[in-house]
């Protein structure tokens, strides 16, 4: 069996979780609680194993032949268009499936513990598996259309998983919001596909690689920007990022898997995959870079003041995704991929940690009522702290290498404005992550305020997962901190939750070594090189330049950490007051409300847009259009009623009618005869 034959079996990878979906959907109830989770996890684990096999198989090929397409069947044969349902294996897709299956498996495992006691346990895992399958189809697809299938599939799963606790209104709304925002992106994706068919004549990536360079600039820019719109939606870039913070209404494993590690990076994947269009356009790249940079900065600033443990992470994710887009916009696709991998590890760890904290705090997510938890949850705290250092860019952790490469690339391409933005965002990152870590695990134990109080009868404790409170656990900026409701001290999580955190934390520490910024040690870059052949790379002019830029990065990170340390070292003196709010004043409110973008949109939607639609449906449709229809009927009726009045019942008037007829006919005769 040759390597290529082996690679033809790549379909097994998405098929495994898909099998899980079928099994769990139809038999989930019967399988019951822990087993359903184990089935899902095992299947994804097997997929990971098979991904490793695929990786090895691909590795065994010479590096310029590391691509293999397997067509399963003809999906859409319409007219001159033939779209196959096919899978493409190349270094890019292999990287992503390793990531998806690997991180996915860990988070599945984590979810077994996290979702314990949930009434819809098996369904949750069915959705998770469906998500994994969709994501795998997305990255393995051999054409835009197959990718789009996965693209929409992950959107669907995102919707279902965010709304998993649909009893909570906010969860339901958040799911809807996510889907709709993604649809706005899909609008771009679909139009881009039409453009591609119209210009390239095929949706296959192979055809794209061949022909993209030969297209007119306007066309290729239009394609690139429309695709980019899709990426913006999926990867929560400005201005479509609004759904991601709300998506935190979903269970935390979902946030970790979908809204941090994998799905949101699909936009980056698509940028990488469709880079020939972007490269051919050039202008589109500039747009990508600036949108990415702006997102990194603005989302970072919003994260500064958020009181909710998950929301900080959500805005952080948006910000980090901005870095990845910035990298793509600079043409540093390998750097973007590197960042994706590193981010998946450390952000995954952070989310899992946050989940554990929330779990251990009776669903409380408010940073202001935590503090000092490291004593109660030592493993969790350990993993979280490692990831915090990684994301803050402390060498030699993975975050340092990944982020530093992007920031440096901005410098190398002489986009100094971008470089400054990137550096500023890095400072923000260091600050808000430090703030979160300190408020959670260090400082005064603010949750204790409740422990002294009357113990609340605890008969709900056993089944607090079963009954979902209709109030959202996430905390909006400006909402007063809730009274702590803990009736016992926080506790460490079971091993199913701790183990994945620790493994991911280790990866977050170590994964940076796959792409060290030294010649011959850039394993990842070289591995991906066949995919991005033809893309100009920028490197440091000299070792000194590179080294000094690194120093700048680290310094900036340390400054951010230092600021946060001075403010939050002892936690909060008063849990109602965040000192940062006082220092920043009105700017804090601006940050806290995310520049009022959500408010503005929702005010517009519930205000003028909604009343316009209301007018359309109640006045225009019913009164004007239907009114015209009924008006015709009424017209006839009015005519009938007036004609009916003529029929007086008086025979003499009837005779008058006859005479009138006589007079008219004779008049006609006169006209006819011509007198």
């Amino acid at each position, binding site marked *: 069996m040759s390597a290529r034959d082996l690679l033809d079996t790549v379909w097994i990878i998405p098929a495994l979780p898909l099998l899980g979906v079928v099994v769990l959907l139809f038999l989930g109830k019967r399988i019951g609680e822990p087993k359903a989770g184990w089935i899902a996890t095992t299947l994804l684990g097997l997929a990971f194993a098979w991904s490793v096999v695929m990786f090895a198989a691909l590795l065994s090929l010479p590096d310029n032949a590391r691509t293999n397409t397997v067509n399963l069947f003809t999906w859409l044969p319409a007219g001159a268009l033939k779209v196959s349902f096919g899978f493409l294996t190349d270094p890019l897709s292999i990287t992503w499936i390793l990531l998806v299956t690997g991180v996915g498996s860990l988070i599945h495992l984590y979810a077994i513990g996290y979702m314990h006691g949930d009434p819809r346990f098996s369904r949750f895992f069915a959705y998770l598996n469906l998500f994994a399958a969709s994501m795998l189809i997305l990255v393995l697809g051999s054409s835009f259309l197959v990718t789009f299938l996965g693209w929409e599939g992950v959107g669907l799963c995102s919707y279902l998983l965010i709304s998993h606790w649909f009893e909570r209104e906010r969860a339901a709304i958040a799911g809807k919001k996510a889907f709709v925002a993604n649809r706005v992106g899909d609008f771009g994706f679909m139009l881009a596909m039409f453009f591609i068919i119209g210009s390239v004549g095929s949706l296959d990536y192979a055809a794209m690689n061949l022909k993209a360079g030969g297209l007119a600039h306007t066309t290729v820019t239009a394609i690139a920007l429309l695709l980019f719109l899709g990426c913006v939606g999926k990867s929560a870039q400005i201005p479509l990022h609004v759904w991601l913070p709300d998506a935190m209404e979903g269970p935390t494993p979902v946030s970790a898997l979908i809204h941090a590690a994998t799905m949101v990076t699909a936009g980056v994947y698509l940028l990488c995959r469709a880079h020939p269009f972007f490269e051919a356009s050039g202008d589109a790249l500039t747009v990508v870079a600036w949108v990415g940079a702006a997102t990194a900065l603005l989302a970072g600033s919003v994260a500064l003041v958020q009181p909710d443990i998950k929301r900080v992470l959500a805005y952080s994710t948006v910000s980090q995704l901005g870095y990845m887009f910035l990298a793509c916009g600079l043409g540093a696709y390998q750097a973007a991929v590197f960042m994706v991998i590193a981010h998946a590890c450390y952000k995954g760890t952070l989310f899992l940690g946050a989940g554990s904290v929330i779990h251990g705090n009776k669903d409380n997510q408010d940073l202001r009522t935590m503090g000092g938890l490291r004593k109660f949850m030592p493993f969790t705290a350990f993993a979280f702290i490692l990831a915090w250092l990684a994301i803050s860019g402390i060498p030699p952790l993975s975050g340092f290498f990944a982020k530093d490469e992007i920031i440096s690339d901005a410098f190398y391409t002489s986009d100094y404005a971008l470089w400054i933005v990137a550096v500023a965002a890095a400072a923000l990152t260091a600050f808000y992550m430090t703030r979160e870590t300190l408020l959670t695990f260090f400082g005064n134990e603010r949750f204790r305020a409740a422990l002294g109080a009357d113990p609340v009868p605890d008969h709900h404790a056993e089944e607090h997962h079963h009954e979902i409170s209709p109030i959202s656990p996430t905390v909006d900026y400006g909402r007063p901190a809730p009274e702590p409701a803990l009736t016992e001290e926080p506790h460490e999580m079971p091993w199913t939750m701790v183990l994945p955190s620790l493994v991911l934390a280790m990866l977050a520490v170590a994964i940076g070594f796959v792409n060290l910024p030294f010649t011959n040690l850039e394993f990842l870059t070289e591995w991906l090189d066949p995919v991005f052949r033809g893309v100009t790379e920028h490197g440091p002019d000299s070792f000194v330049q590179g080294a000094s830029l690194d120093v700048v990065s680290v310094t900036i990170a340390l400054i951010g950490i230092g600021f946060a340390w001075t403010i939050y070292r002892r936690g909060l003196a008063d849990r109602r007051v965040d000192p940062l709010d006082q220092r920043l004043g009105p700017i804090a409110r601006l940050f806290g409300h995310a520049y009022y973008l959500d408010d503005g949109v929702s005010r517009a939607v519930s205000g003028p847009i909604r009343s316009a639609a209301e007018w359309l449906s109640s006045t225009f449709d019913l009164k004007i259009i239907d009114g015209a229809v009924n008006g015709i009927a009424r017209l006839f009726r009015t005519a009938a009623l007036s004609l009916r009045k003529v029929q007086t019942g008086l025979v003499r008037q009837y005779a008058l009618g006859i005479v009138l007829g006589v007079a008219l006919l004779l008049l006609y*005769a006169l006209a006819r005869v011509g007198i």
Partner: protein
Amino acid sequence: MVEFVIFFLMAAVALGAGLGVVLARNPVHSALLLVTVLIAIAVMFLLQDAQLVAAVQVIVYAGAIVVLFLFVIMLLGVDQIESMRETVRFQRPAALALGVIALAEVLFLAGHHWATGAKSASSGLHAGAGGNIERVARSLFTDYLWPFEVTSVLLVVAVIGGVVLARRSGLPPDVDLSEGGEEDVARGEDTGPTADEVTTP
């Protein structure tokens, strides 16, 4: 010239009496004026070489039909002066106007010489043997044999109709099996779904 005078005299009488029929307030007077019209017209028939028709006009029309009218007037006891006030709005002016218009139209259409047809060769007014009576008879029994026969049915019908309708019904007047509150029903009636109901939501 004599003919001329007779014609105008008769025309004036006929038209005047005709107007009288319309304007007389007592139906008996109308009937009597109708007789006058009929006799004046009979004279005109004589002017037109229609002797038989003139005779029949007097005998049948004046003698039978108008008498029938008078008979019914008396039978029903409506031989009294009635109000001439018009209760229906615009009926009179409209009737007058339309009548005059229609008349004017006919006259305009007819122009100066009404008849445009070629003279009939076969059944001329004076052709053939015999007098006017015989010639009319010949026409009736040859040309118009079929309608002539059909009129017999007409007369039978008239007889039956008269008998059937004028026969006493056996019910006292003004008591109607069905009439109970008929007027009421006719006005504020409960109707089916009106067009409004089915056209508007």
